[in-house]
Every structure is written in structure tokens, then in C-alpha cells.
């Protein structure tokens, strides 16, 4: 390689490098804050923790108002993920393999729910879930989040299923497999990667959503995101605690993201790039 070409490549690498530094700075600050004492935070500006402390994390793991928030969040997120993907699997198969009355419009209608602003649904959801007696349970949030997660799961899974050649289905039917045996024994293992990606995105979008989760719960099922915003608005200056709670919410994402790194872009394009 020519020397000029090499310096060109090095210069070019600067752009992603600077961009990544920009992305990491607020995260660095959040993590730093979580290891500081309240006195240090309010006392003045320190670029890194001078009195390093784990007290904020200890408080979160021992105080039930905090750790129950994580448990509540995980409960509805997992329930929602399972529900969304299980329901979406046969539907995605239907969309990828068959034509039927109104299929395109049905698909579009599902998509509009993915795009609808949760703010529009907040108030009627509050009344709907109160009327059916699910208010302040994890089930209310799990069901409400299917509004955008089911369409997303259908979309992603349909994208993956369309990549599976139709011959697979036809051979199985010729061999005398009934539909459900074929679907569960052959087809689902074939698109395991797609199911993983769909689960990941359902998990993530349910995990990051605040408005509906906060509206549909009050005490018993309060999710961690609501605990955080209420802490932030009422007691004001427990910033270290808030930072520690925030840091902990990043961990699952950072952990899972590594496994799906090759599918991230595809998933965010809703499986259609």
C-alpha cells in the first residue's frame, strides 16, 4: 500500500473515532456520577470520583422500592416479549407464504400501530385497563406494549422467513408432515436467528418505553423507569442514586447487543433493508 493511502485511511478513521468519543462522554459521566457521594456531587466539579463509593449501588440492591422496580420491569418485559413473538410467529408465516383477502392492508394496519404515538393511547389505555381490572399489574403493561411490539415482531420475522426457500415447506408437506409438526419441528429451528433478533427488539422496545408503563401502574407494579422519574422529580438531589440506577439499566442492553451485532442494522430497518 502507498504511504499516502495509509495516511488517508488513518485520517478517515478519525471520524468514527471522534463520533464514538462523543457517544461515550455522557455515558462516562453517568457511570462516574454513580460512584460519587452526594456531597461530592453537590460540592463542586470533579472530573472523576475522588471519594470512590459503592453506596449508591448497595442502596439499590437492598432497598425494595428500587430493586422491586427492576423485578417489575423485567416481569412485564419478559411477558411481553414471549407473548409478542409467540403470537407473531404464525402470522409472519402466513404473510411470508400466502396471499389472502386483505393481506397487504392488514400488514399496513399493523405497521401504523408501530408508528402510532403512545401519547395518543395513554388516556384510553388507562380507562380500558381499569375497566378490565388489570390496572397496576405487570399484565397491563405487557399487553399494552404488544401494540407496537407485535407489529415489529411480525415485520422482523416475516423478513427472515421470506429468506427461507419455499422448497423446505413443500418437501415437508410431501413427506406427510402435518402443518403444526412441520412448523414446530422444522421451520422454527430454521429461523432461530430471526426469532432471537425479534425477541431482542421486543425486549428492547418494551424496556425503553416509559409513558405507557408509567401510566398503567401506580404502586404494586411500578417499573424501574417510573421509580427513576419520580425520584428525579420529588427528592431532587439524589443524583448519585439516579446515576447508579441509570447505569444498571444500560447493562442488559450492552450485554445482549454483543450477540446480535450482525443483525442490529437489519432489525432497526424492521427487517426490510
Amino acid at each position, binding site marked *: 500500500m502507498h504511504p499516502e493511502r495509509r495516511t488517508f485511511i488513518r485520517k478517515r478513521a478519525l471520524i468514527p473515532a471522534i463520533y464514538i468519543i462523543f457517544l461515550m462522554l455522557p455515558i462516562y459521566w453517568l457511570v462516574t456520577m454513580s460512584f460519587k457521594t452526594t456531597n461530592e456531587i453537590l460540592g463542586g466539579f470533579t472530573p472523576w470520583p475522588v471519594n470512590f463509593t459503592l453506596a449508591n449501588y448497595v442502596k439499590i440492591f437492598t432497598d425494595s422500592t428500587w430493586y422491586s422496580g427492576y423485578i417489575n420491569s423485567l416481569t412485564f418485559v419478559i411477558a411481553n416479549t414471549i407473548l409478542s413473538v409467540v403470537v407473531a410467529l404464525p402470522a409472519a408465516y402466513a404473510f411470508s407464504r400466502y396471499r389472502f383477502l386483505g393481506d397487504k392492508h392488514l400488514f399496513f394496519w399493523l405497521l401504523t400501530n408501530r408508528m402510532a404515538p403512545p401519547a395518543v393511547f395513554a388516556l384510553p389505555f388507562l380507562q380500558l385497563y381499569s*375497566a378490565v381490572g388489570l390496572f397496576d399489574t405487570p399484565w397491563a403493561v405487557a399487553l399494552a406494549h404488544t401494540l407496537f411490539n407485535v407489529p415489529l415482531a411480525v415485520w422482523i420475522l416475516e423478513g427472515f422467513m421470506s429468506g427461507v426457500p419455499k422448497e423446505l415447506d413443500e418437501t415437508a408437506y410431501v413427506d406427510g408432515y402435518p402443518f403444526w409438526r412441520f412448523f414446530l419441528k422444522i421451520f422454527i429451528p430454521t429461523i432461530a436467528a430471526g426469532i432471537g433478533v425479534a425477541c431482542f427488539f421486543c425486549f428492547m422496545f418494551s424496556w425503553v418505553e416509559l409513558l405507557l408503563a408509567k401510566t398503567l401502574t401506580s404502586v404494586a407494579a411500578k417499573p424501574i423507569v417510573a421509580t427513576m422519574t419520580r425520584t428525579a422529580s420529588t427528592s431532587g438531589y439524589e443524583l448519585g442514586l439516579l446515576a447508579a440506577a441509570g447505569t444498571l439499566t444500560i447493562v442488559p442492553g450492552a450485554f445482549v447487543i454483543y450477540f446480535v451485532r450482525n443483525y442490529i442494522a437489519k432489525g432497526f430497518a424492521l427487517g426490510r433493508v
Partner: protein
Amino acid sequence: MEGTSIIAWMAWTWPTAAFFAFIALCLIAMSVWEVYSPGGAPRHGILGLDTTRGDRLFISLLGSAFIFLAWLGLFGTPLWAPLGISLVYAFVVFRWV
């Protein structure tokens, strides 16, 4: 809102019920039409879009909603004029788009 039946909290009125009944009837009519003449009569319309009957219905309804809103924002009630415009618009959409 506690203890009331599902119908009560939804606060139904006759006009809104009629509106949704109209939408439901449209969908049923489109399905019946599709059964008797399958394929949805696809064509490449004047906007450069490939549309079927269902698409044309959707474009008509969505466009009409915006016509009503625009009229209400610019001139206010009564709403007979936008109703007329919407019907003409729907006809145009079904004929040429």
C-alpha cells in the same frame, strides 16, 4: 370509571356509532367485492402509484379527513361543503388514481 361496564366508559354516541358502522360497512363491502371480482383491479394511476381498490378507499378516507380538518380550521361549521368536496375527491380517486 370503576365498576362501570365496558360500554359506559367508552361514552358511545349515535353519530360516532354510525361513523364506525359506516367504516365497517365499507370494509365488508370491499371484502364482498373482492370475493366476486378478485385481484382488486390493480392499476398504475395518475400519481404514479400502483393502487388496488382497497388502497383507493384508504386514500379517499384519509384525504377526506384532511379536507374536513382544513375546512374546519379555515372556515368553521357547517360542514356540508367539505362533505361535497370529499365526495368529489373520492370519486376522482376511484376513477383515476
